[in-house]
């Protein structure tokens, strides 16, 4: 994984996975390299946070 460049499909999977379990060092590094270059996946990352916040808010609104 460390030597491979992620595409958006793989990066989005890792971004979602960060909400399930801690990423391995290799996963984190590959993801960081992709996010440095990809605003679309940075937007997706922020959107996951909005989903998470909305879901938590939903329980107590």
């Amino acid at each position, binding site marked *: 994984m460390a030597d491979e460049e992620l*595409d*958006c*499909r*793989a990066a*989005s*999977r890792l971004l*979602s*996975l960060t*909400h*399930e*379990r801690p990423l391995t060092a290799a996963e984190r590094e590959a993801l960081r390299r992709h996010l440095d270059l990809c605003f*679309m*996946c940075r*937007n*997706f990352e*922020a*959107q*996951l946070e*909005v*989903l*998470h*916040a*909305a*879901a*938590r*808010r*939903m*329980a*107590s*609104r």
Partner: protein
Amino acid sequence: MTPLAPAADPRFAEIESHRPYLVRYATAQLRDAALAEEVVQEALVAALEGIAGFGGRSSLRTWLTSILRFKVVDFQRRTIAERARQVQAPEGDESDEGWLDELFDETGHWREPPAAWGDPEAAFEQGRFWETFEGCLGGLSPLAQRVFFKREVLGEETDAICKDEDITSSNCWVILHRARLALRGCLEKRWFGKDASHGG
């Protein structure tokens, strides 16, 4: 399910407005939408009877949820033997990833790039945002709705959810990933995107 008959207490309408959330909560636990509606109805009747005991220390939704939780547990106890005999219908192979091809092209790039959404707090203040969110959740498969609700709304651990649902962790992750991709697409189309016309 029939809305509760309007009566003297002005909080009736407010209680009624929490019904969709409560049905979702009950469905996540009971895996049966019709049953969930029944249990919610029972809980709301109990809530109306006990509204005088609601002191406003928690939000109304939190209070209603705690009543519902008792009803759900009670129901599960009563029917535990029955449920053991029921065979769960499979909902299709969630590990099949063909669905990702609709979202990503053959080079692995987004077909429709996610946009910047701006400040979500402004959206959270609006009732119509929550109707939209509810509508988007309703577009997921029943299994995905339950898993997403338990994970993101109730904050349960992924492992516990998978065990409950009799699915592997990796399958669970795929279900959650798919649910998030679908929800973000739905919210972008209906609320946050530049073409969304929610009027807010």
